[in-house]
């Protein structure tokens, strides 16, 4: 299900705008109305960042605050579940469909950035392979009212080797803890950036993303011979 917050009409029925030829589509071959715009033809490259964190921490809110277009896609996830299937004793597998939202923003004429809202609970591990692969890094949102629920996501990031920065999404009723205490509670490495943001506020989210990419950039410089 695609949802486009902007009312841009887009090149609807883009598939009907074929440049003639003998291969005219039949009635079922018309490209469906996507409900959102294609990229301008100058866009040829993409980059991906993950926006992750525990349940309900504000991932979707942040993606919507930063990206002018937010879409939703389904991903299917196959897990071995408890119990065995029939007498043969083969492990039973269940397939779950998970809806994931992602935002896109054009950073210059040719480069588009994708922000993937990525659930950070351990049970979503099967989704991570496809998400973490190729990601430049991740911004981890945490809620100081419930830091314990952030350990799963930090484990997943370590497992997939995705570099990350942490941003406290400050909720109105949350007590303000000194950053050092939060850093300790999360057992963060001294070099991992830790900032504060408001997932509803675009500027503060863009600043948190800048902090992340500055860190990624510095890290890359260091690792060069």
């Amino acid at each position, binding site marked *: *299900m*695609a949802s486009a917050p902007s009312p841009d009409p887009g*090149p609807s029925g*883009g*598939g009907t*705008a074929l440049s003639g030829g003998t*291969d005219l*589509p039949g009635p079922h071959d*018309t*490209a*469906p109305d*996507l409900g*959102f715009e*294609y*990229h301008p*033809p*100058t*866009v*040829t*490259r*993409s*980059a*991906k960042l993950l926006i992750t964190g525990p349940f309900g921490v504000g991932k979707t809110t942040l993606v919507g605050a930063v990206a002018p277009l937010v*879409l*939703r*896609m*389904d*991903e*299917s996830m196959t897990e071995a579940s408890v119990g065995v299937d*029939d*007498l043969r004793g*083969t492990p039973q*597998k*269940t*397939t779950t*469909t998970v809806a*994931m939202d*992602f935002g*896109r923003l054009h*950073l*210059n*004429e*040719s*480069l*588009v*950035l*994708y922000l993937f809202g990525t659930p950070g609970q351990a049970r979503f591990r099967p989704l991570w392979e*496809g*998400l973490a*692969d*190729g990601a*430049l890094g991740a911004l981890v949102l945490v809620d100081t009212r419930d830091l314990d629920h952030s350990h799963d996501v930090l484990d997943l990031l370590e497992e997939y080797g995705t570099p990350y920065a942490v941003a406290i999404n400050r909720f109105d009723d949350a007590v303000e803890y000194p950053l050092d205490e939060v850093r300790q509670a999360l057992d963060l490495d001294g070099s991992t950036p830790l900032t504060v943001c408001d997932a509803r506020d675009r500027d503060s989210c*863009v*600043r948190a*993303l800048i902090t992340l*990419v*500055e860190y*990624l*950039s510095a890290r*890359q410089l260091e690792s060069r011979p």
Partner: protein
Amino acid sequence: MSGPRRDPDVVRPYVRTGGRSRPSRDVRLETLVIAADSPLQGLEPDARRVFAVCRGGVLAVAEIAAGLELPASVVRILVSGLMDSGHLAAPVRRSRADAPTTDLLKEVLHGLRSIA
């Protein structure tokens, strides 16, 4: 051969992708593609839909999945097959300024600063 299938969805992605369970090439959610000038004929229904939608312009794999309401893992496999058969291709770079930068992170940083 196997026991009763409790969940028909287990077989569906496999069937929908013509028997493949992994992409044949490195196709990621953010990979951009556009349709080449190839005929639709001979494509399976889902591949045909993906190809048809890509005729409208440049899209990322995740956007094709969103627009067609197909699971992203299925779209990754279909797109890789369509790239193998020449139906889809990476968008063509138009200028030298568009060349892949040696420093993508710096470019992303610059872009984010420009919208801050």
